[in-house]
């Protein structure tokens, strides 16, 4: 009798190197960084920000003029070779003052974004995630913060703490994150009902993990947009605080203060308004490109 099995020889096929078609698994952050690097506009934004920081730190040291050296015989001088941006109402070099102002404005911008991201995102995330009574109480607290006039709080802070940069950060920390909190809460309410959340829960993920690793990254779009767009708010809020007397005192001036002062004479001396405003806009554009890039990079749905 013929053994049927022997009539059949297995086809010899090459072992498929399955590994070649499987992407090496890399972490979330490494993947994000890789994607970010590919985005040219985002990189431009990042470089500009680095340049601005460098100018802020080293610029005033390198400049011929001191930021507070007055020259009453040369007030309101126009743009010239010796004063690239002209001089202000006390004859001080505007270029140096703009560079010096970068220190304050960039610091305020970064701190404000940081506070927003940490406090605002976590607060809003937790509130939306927990839902029910917790959400209710947390949002009512936000309502109270919105409702009480920030100006009163700020004046009281000024009376109690006096002027100084740290006090600006305190004032920002008190009221600045509420807009972000509301937005994140809204996103969270929606995202927590989606399937991936259910999936994560089924897999046994802890609540913290779900919130931080799943929900927040999926809300990254509005978070980044809000964070970037709130920076100029912070810059001008700081200028406003200087009006009240909280924050930096003259002759130190941030871009916000320079621009606010510049508005008052813009018909006669537009350079005093133009240059600080220009720098604010450039910073904004850079943060925006970077922000868009970050959003695309950090969004888990856009993994390629």
């Amino acid at each position: 009798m013929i053994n049927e099995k022997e009539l059949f020889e297995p086809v010899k096929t090459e072992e498929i190197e399955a590994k070649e078609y499987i992407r090496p698994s890399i972490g979330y952050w490494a993947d994000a960084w890789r994607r970010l690097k590919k985005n040219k506009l985002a990189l431009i934004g990042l470089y500009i920000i680095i340049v601005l920081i460098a100018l802020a730190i080293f610029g005033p040291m390198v400049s011929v003029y001191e930021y507070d050296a007055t020259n009453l015989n040369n007030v309101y001088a126009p743009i010239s070779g010796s004063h690239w941006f002209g001089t202000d109402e006390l004859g001080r070099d505007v270029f140096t003052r703009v560079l010096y102002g970068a220190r304050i404005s960039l610091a305020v911008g970064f701190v404000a974004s940081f506070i927003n991201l940490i406090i605002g995102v976590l607060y809003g995330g937790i509130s939306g995630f927990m839902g029910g009574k917790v959400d209710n109480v947390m949002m009512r607290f936000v309502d109270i913060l919105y409702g009480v006039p920030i100006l009163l709080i700020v004046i009281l802070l000024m009376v109690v703490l006096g002027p100084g940069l740290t006090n600006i950060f305190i004032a920002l920390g008190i009221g600045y994150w509420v807009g972000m909190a509301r937005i994140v809460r809204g996103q969270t309410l929606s995202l927590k009902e989606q399937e991936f959340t259910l999936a994560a829960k089924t897999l046994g993920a802890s609540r913290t993990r779900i919130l931080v690793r799943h929900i927040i990254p999926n809300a990254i779009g509005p978070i980044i947009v809000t964070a970037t767009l709130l920076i100029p708010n912070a810059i001008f809020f700081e200028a406003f605080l200087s009006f009240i007397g909280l924050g930096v005192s003259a002759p130190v001036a941030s871009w916000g203060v320079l621009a606010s002062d510049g508005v008052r004479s813009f018909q006669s001396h537009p350079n005093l308004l133009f240059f600080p405003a220009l720098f604010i806009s450039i910073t904004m554009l850079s943060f925006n490109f970077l922000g868009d890039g970050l959003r695309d990079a950090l969004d888990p749905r856009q993994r390629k």
Partner: protein
Amino acid sequence: MLKKLTILMLVVAMLGTFAGCKKAAPVEEMVLKYNVGAEPQYFDPRKATGIPEFTMLLNLFDGLMRYDNQGQIVPSVAESYTVSTDGLVWTFKLKDTKWSNGEPLTAQDFEYAWKTALSPEIASEYSYQLYYIKNGEKYNSGELTNADEVGVKALDDKTLEVTLEAPTPYFTSLLSFTTYLPINKKLDQSNPDWAKSADNYVSNGPFKLTLWDHNHTIEMVKNTNYWDKDKVKLTKIIFTMVEENTTEMLMFENGEIDWGPNPPPAELDRLKAEGKVTINPYLGTYYYLFNVTKKPFDDVRVRKALLFAIDKESIVKNITKSGELPATAYVPLGVPDATPGSDFRKVGGDLFKVYDPDEAKKLLAEAGYPDGKGFPTFVLLYNTNERHKTIAEAIQRMWKETLGINCTLTNQEWKVYLDNRNKLNYDVARAGWIGDYTDPMTFIDMWVTGGGNNDTGWGNTQYDEYVRIAKSTGDQAARMDAMHKAETILMAEMPIGPIYFYTRPELIKPYIKGYYTSALGYTDFKDAYIEKH
């Protein structure tokens, strides 16, 4: 549905807002548009305290005396007056004049107005203007409760008798001010809220109130019942309440207003070059206060050093640029002295140099801080304001470069700043004072020991004595002499450091003529007119 209702509601509200606008009648009008810059706090002459209110009220009302447009004080509602030999009793004979509603104006209206202004119930912030009147202060504080003991009495409908606490040579000029204006007694007794709207408002001056759109505009038209109405040429004045000085300037340049009293300092150069600025006198001094209760400002040499190191000429030439004069003493120019036509400041002369850096350095060294060594870093306080900031920054630099001392600048919100000044919670602070009336006393009596406006902690018994002498006699020569001596003491001890004497740069269209701008800050449009242009 809710959305539709809301839209409908808002459309109705919008229509409602516009319904309030009146269309101007096409008549031969002469209309002046003046930006008074703020909603009046009080529109009752007994209570008003601010310059915008003064401007409007002095055009609506007329007092016993009035400044004409040459700056001379002349009888207005008063026909004539006599003064007793001791200078204490003034008797006024009134003209036959009417209220804007046709009712006759009587001496009782004056008596009623002044007595109620002093009453604790009305609680007028400016009642102290009437303290010159016998028992005025006592009645106001509640020490006396019978208003009849206050020294003003209507002897009959046309005769008013006033008794003063002490001889006051400048009493005639005081009589032109708002606190001394008459009130329609009948109106006030029947409707105590008459001053809160234009509906029932009755006045006796060149103009009468026709519109009060709160926080927006006030309109007044020529009062045909005014006794001197033939002098009044304007048919209407529109007062806008634009607070922001850049907006005011743009409106002026665009022809939307004819007169802007507050041009932005940063634009002054250009505005002056374009011929848009008129510089009017303003009776006031800009100075720095020294907290004499705090080291090292308790040393007069330190105070003087700080003041002499300030280049005041440079400040008025390069920063304020409105024709101000650098200060060489405390009382500014524009206040009369004993002989008619003389000026207190000119008679008193310069009590220190405009700029004396060498003397400043010497004094500082004598005080124990040669070249500023060992001098503590202190705080220069000012209220948030463009001009004060710029001046402070310049002075901070001057002190550093000339004397080698460091100070930090602190600006504070207005009331916090006032409160700190009051509580002596500062090192050096910026201040300014505008005169309430044209006599040196408005400046001199501020610095008496413990005075309500004395924010320095300084006091000097000899100074107080000179002030007392000047207040107790009607002899101008004696008064002026005492006040000069007082000022000399003040400047020898320098608890305050005067920097410059004010002016008032204003944007005024060239076709407006005949007005009177008082150095006290208000403007009288009784004789004003608009030239064809």
